[in-house]
């Protein structure tokens, strides 16, 4: 679209943006969160993804790239008397709100005869727990845990899930013979349908709340829904007719389109159920800030807003894709992150990698703090009612290991979790944790996920 001088004055400053978070948003009241006139079966559904107090139970999966320097990541000490080392130091003030989880593995990210490509595997396996088909074109992973949860609880919110990323993508060259889809997506709707993340905060904001200035967004969002609905009949019919004309392999692509259309349809119904959109009293983000820390923080604010307004209860966010080679001039590191991560035990390189990891942890800590400062509908903090995974698909980036992954689980899940601990799980599949999280969110009938061997206890 041609850009016209906008009548709206975008406010580029994240700080000013933040000023309103937690204060100026007209939150739905506790009661009105529950759709009106719920009957039997629907009432049961309403128990999905809710905390014991009835507040929404949110789940987010944040990933950071290239693993973590083990010596700087893992705390000293035991279950509750642990001390954080340098990488996790920014989380010191939040330690009672989180668990450091040791001993969780993604063994399907190991080479096992597939050779190189540990970054593609680390990213692609992280939330799916399956072996990836090593191919540049024949993409087959598995459904990711966020999508398993999202599918079950879709009826609870306007958006069944949210996918975000702070990575910009370069040309089409990817890791060692793996299709780029594995490395640039962490969320998978099906084995063959990745959920490409959105990286522009403006676009995310407008998708959640509507375009235009405050005061007009709800109406704009309504128009957008009506516009979409006006297309559904024709496009669905047209898609089905085209589907019939195609060969089997082509039909798979049309299935994706059809499934996307059904999601749109469902979202329209959800929207009608939930009434007018929430319209945060703030300027729409202007776009991607030039300063990278501001950018990541702004994206995390979008996540916070989405949770706070109960627009969705499930989200994924790639702080950067695995293998990312960004240099961190802002903290005086001009080498690329991935390049450095193969540090060969050179102390200077190790130090720099640890600083970069700490930079990511700082972003995460800031997000947790803002989540803690935001009061939820039941009077608890938003963080209390959430489960935020922060982790990487590589453990030791220097030699690409995928066992004892660096994982943090923040939030109390509304009381379902026991934070404030450093728990060593002693070589269990990460998928076991996912099984536990899915169960808490009300996912039923899921006996196994990825390489799981059972639900992870003691979380």
């Amino acid at each position, binding site marked *: 679209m041609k850009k016209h001088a906008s009548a709206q004055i975008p406010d580029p400053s994240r700080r000013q943006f933040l000023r309103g978070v937690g204060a100026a948003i007209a939150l739905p009241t506790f009661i009105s969160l529950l759709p009106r006139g719920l009957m039997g079966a629907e009432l049961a559904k309403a128990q999905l993804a809710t905390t014991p107090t009835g507040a929404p139970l949110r789940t987010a999966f944040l990933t950071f790239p290239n693993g973590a320097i083990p010596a700087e990541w893992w705390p000293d000490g035991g279950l509750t008397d642990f001390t954080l080392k340098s990488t996790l130091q920014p989380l010191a003030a939040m330690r009672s709100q989180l668990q450091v989880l040791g001993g969780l593995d993604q063994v399907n990210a190991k080479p096992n005869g597939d050779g*190189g490509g540990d970054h593609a595997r680390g990213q692609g396996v992280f939330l799916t727990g399956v072996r990836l088909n090593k191919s540049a074109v024949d993409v087959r992973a598995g459904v990711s845990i966020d999508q398993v949860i999202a599918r079950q609880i879709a009826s609870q919110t306007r958006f069944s899930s949210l996918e975000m990323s702070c990575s910009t993508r370069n040309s089409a060259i990817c890791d060692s013979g793996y299709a780029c889809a594995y490395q640039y997506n962490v969320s998978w709707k*099906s084995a063959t349908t990745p959920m*490409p993340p959105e990286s522009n905060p403006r676009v995310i904001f407008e998708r959640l709340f509507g375009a235009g200035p405050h005061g007009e967004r709800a109406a704009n969002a309504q128009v957008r829904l009506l516009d*979409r609905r006006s297309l559904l009949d024709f496009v669905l019919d047209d898609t089905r007719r085209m*589907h019939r004309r195609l060969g089997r*392999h082509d039909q798979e692509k049309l299935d994706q389109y059809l499934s996307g259309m059904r999601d749109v349809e469902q979202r329209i119904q959800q929207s009608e159920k939930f009434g007018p959109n929430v319209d945060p009293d703030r300027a729409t983000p202007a776009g991607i800030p030039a300063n990278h820390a501001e950018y990541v923080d702004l994206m995390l604010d979008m996540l916070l807003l989405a949770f706070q307004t109960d627009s969705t209860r499930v989200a994924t966010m790639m702080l950067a894709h695995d293998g990312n080679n960004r240099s961190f001039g802002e903290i005086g590191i001009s080498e690329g992150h991935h390049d450095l991560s193969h540090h060969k035990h*050179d102390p200077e390189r190790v130090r720099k990698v640890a600083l970069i990891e700490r930079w990511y942890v700082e972003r995460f800590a800031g997000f947790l703090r803002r989540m803690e400062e935001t009061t939820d509908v039941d009077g608890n903090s938003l963080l209390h009612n959430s489960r935020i995974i922060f982790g990487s698909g590589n453990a030791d980036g220097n030699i690409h290991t995928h066992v004892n992954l660096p994982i943090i689980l923040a939030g109390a899940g509304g009381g379902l979790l026991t934070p404030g601990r450093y728990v060593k799980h002693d070589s269990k599949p990460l998928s076991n944790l996912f099984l536990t999280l899915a169960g808490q969110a009300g996912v039923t009938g899921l006996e196994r996920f990825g390489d799981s061997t059972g639900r992870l206890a003691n979380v």
Partner: protein
Amino acid sequence: MTFLPSAHTAGLIPLSRRLLAAGAVSLALSGYATGPLPANQPLLESFRTDVRPVLEKYCFDCHAEGSSKGGVAFDELDDASKIADHEIWLRALKNVRMGTMPPSDEAQPTEDEQASILKWIKQQAFALDEQQPDPGRVVVRRLNRVEYRNTIRDLLGVEFDTEAEFPADDSGHGFDNLGEVLTVSPTLVEKLLDASQKIIASAVPAQPREVAERSILGREFNNPTAAANPSPEPVPAAVAANPAFAEFYEAMIKAAKDAAFLSFYEVGSVQHILNAPMTGTYQLSWELQTAEQRMRGEGAPPDLNRCRVRFTIDGVTQLEREFERSGDRNFQLPIEVALTKGEHVLAMTVQPIASDAPQTRQLRMRLNAVKLRGPLEKEGWVVPARHREFFGNGVPQDADERRRYTVQLISQFARRAFRRPADDYTINRLVDAAERIGTQRGNSFERGISHAMVAILASPRFLFREEVTEPLQPGKKYPFVDEHSLASRLSYFLWSSMPDEELFRLADEGRLRQNFSAQFERMLRDPRSSRFVADFTGQWLQARDVANVVIDPLSVILRDRPNPELENARVVFRSLIEDDPIHYTPEEKIAFDHADKLLKEEERRPKPRLTGRLRRAMRQETEMMFEHIIEEDRSVLELIDTNYAFLNEELARHYGIEGVKGSEMRKVELPPDSPRGGVLTSGAVLTVTSNPTRTSPVKRGVFILDNILGMPPAPPPPNIPGLEDVASKDELSRMTMREQINLHAKASLCRSCHLRMDPLGLSLENFNALGVWRESEQNLPVDPSGELVTGEKFQTITDLKRILVTDRRRDFYYCLSEKLLIYALGRGPEYTDTTLLDELADRLEASGGRMSVLLTGLVQSAAFQQSRESSPSFSATADSRLTVADRHSTSESNVVIP
């Protein structure tokens, strides 16, 4: 573009016309005549008798009897199904063809032995039918972001920023236009629906008449106090080095040229004579900005000066407001006025507000534009700008004629959007919807048509390139794609966009195949083919990435010429910068100030940097090289070795070449001893294959293997041993890149692969990570010499280029042919493409590498003209009740739901 068939191609085209006319475009195979092997001989038997003895002789040392280097063990091929594994034979084929296996220091098979193996692979293992080659399977292609944007531009004249609005496309084999890889996520579907609305709303008028609107730019105001408009300061170095800032800065300067400026500190005014077309009500919106520029000198306090701005029409004040410094904030000040027909004077006057505040900035009011709407009265409304384009001379009043007119408008648009005529069922549905909506209260005929157009853009028939085949001809294995499919294959290959009217017309008339060569040449000459050039080179050479690659100039320069004092200053600066200066000890304070001073001086010293303009020039250079070869139908070998380059002043200076003036890119004859010329020594390739602080000979070597020689190295093994196993950290820190890289040769695990890539990468060590020529690294002279894994020795990059275009040129022919095949067809290469690639390489060889031979050979091939499978509409199962419903939920392997 000129595209003159050369002596070689002149012979080719009539031949292919004949073939086309006969309905057989499959390329006659010239290189490999059908051999003596009986076709019915079982695969296993032929393997045992014809192949295994040769393998035993030359290959079993590494690939049998317990040794399986590269995961290949030939003695394990003991049953027919293992022997039929195409993947292993495709690797063998490439390695034997290139002479990379057996390694050059091992016994080599005779030419006859090589030929017999190649023949066996093609005829037995692949069972290729050279007369009727398998065209391969192209999965239905969704328009990617580039194609969507171009298609919307060509279809509707609207610029839609898909980069910002749609998530990134997935890619494979280095290209992002592969049907198999391009997926459709639910978010994308939602965005596509919204995009359809947005695009049509911005292109198609929704009313027959509307309020007139226009913008009067700031520069259209005459400014008697022109001195208030100082030229902007030169771009600061720190800004220029960051591409994101530099782009922004340049856009800002450009926009500033459209604005008028008035100083805060003196009385001034600007005015414009407005001609009102009729007496009526008008809305004016003053679009202002408070601009400020820092004065020279550090640490000036904020400027507290203020001013009053008055807006008048014919001397009568309409609006008055006070402004203070507010950092480039935008203001819109709307007014509504009654104007009589004729001329009026619009003026804006700035009056300083007396203040004792010192002037520490340059504060100015910036008038970007006045947006004018009106007259608002209906009789003054105008026909919307693009109304005629979409609705012709007007909408018929008669109901029947109106219906016919609706059918006509919608059919025309659907045909272009779907890239083939739409069926009656679809048209009727759309016409019904258009009429229903167009006749609703408050709606217009135009709105009804717009609705149908939105539906067309939201249809999968717009988003996906559905292909239809001709009926299968008797005696043929593979059907031709129909003429409309062919038109789209051509247009998306050469233009990254939809067919134009001429292609549509020919396809409608069923005459495109008859006129195929002429059309192909016309399309290549068309300016739109620059999209192919940009899109293909941007991905093949990764030239897209030069826009964002991050290289730290100081680190690069310190690597070329170490400067301990500066390096120490960097360490001191970084260790102290995070602390609050209040906590510095006196010694730290001195050390910090000293480091700060040194680094600031260094920062100001002119040095090569990747400015936004330089990055663009680098990218353009690769595009112009490729375009030049197409235009003049030159040898593709010139992409590697030439005596010319495409440069402007800035790029020439970066390359150390004298005598190029101005910003315009042009062809430059290189000095005889210049190492430049060709893609390998182009700034784009040299920078995108570097790390942020240094060159990466490994990345550069892999780049050449992958994109020039077509021999991608095996991926690195897991658990790579650290280099510290072979050298101490201290030793490592002082080594040149070559010394470090040579450590690969010491570790046996690394050796075999790195022998392939390292010499290639090291040959470019005379070019640092910024692509600048250097003689030394770590104060030691650079040694670019080396030896290819196939045995050729070289002293310099110039030698290597010569080897690549002589001894190894066939490898490059294969490689470029394969890359173009992937891009043109939107699918990965398969073993079934062996016949075509052989043919293309042979033709290139025979023609001296002419680009036209390659391109025409490709588009005339079975792969481009035919389809592996017939459209289901031609098979018996015309109408199967569709049951796609939730197929996904049952097919996921990692979720078990009992």
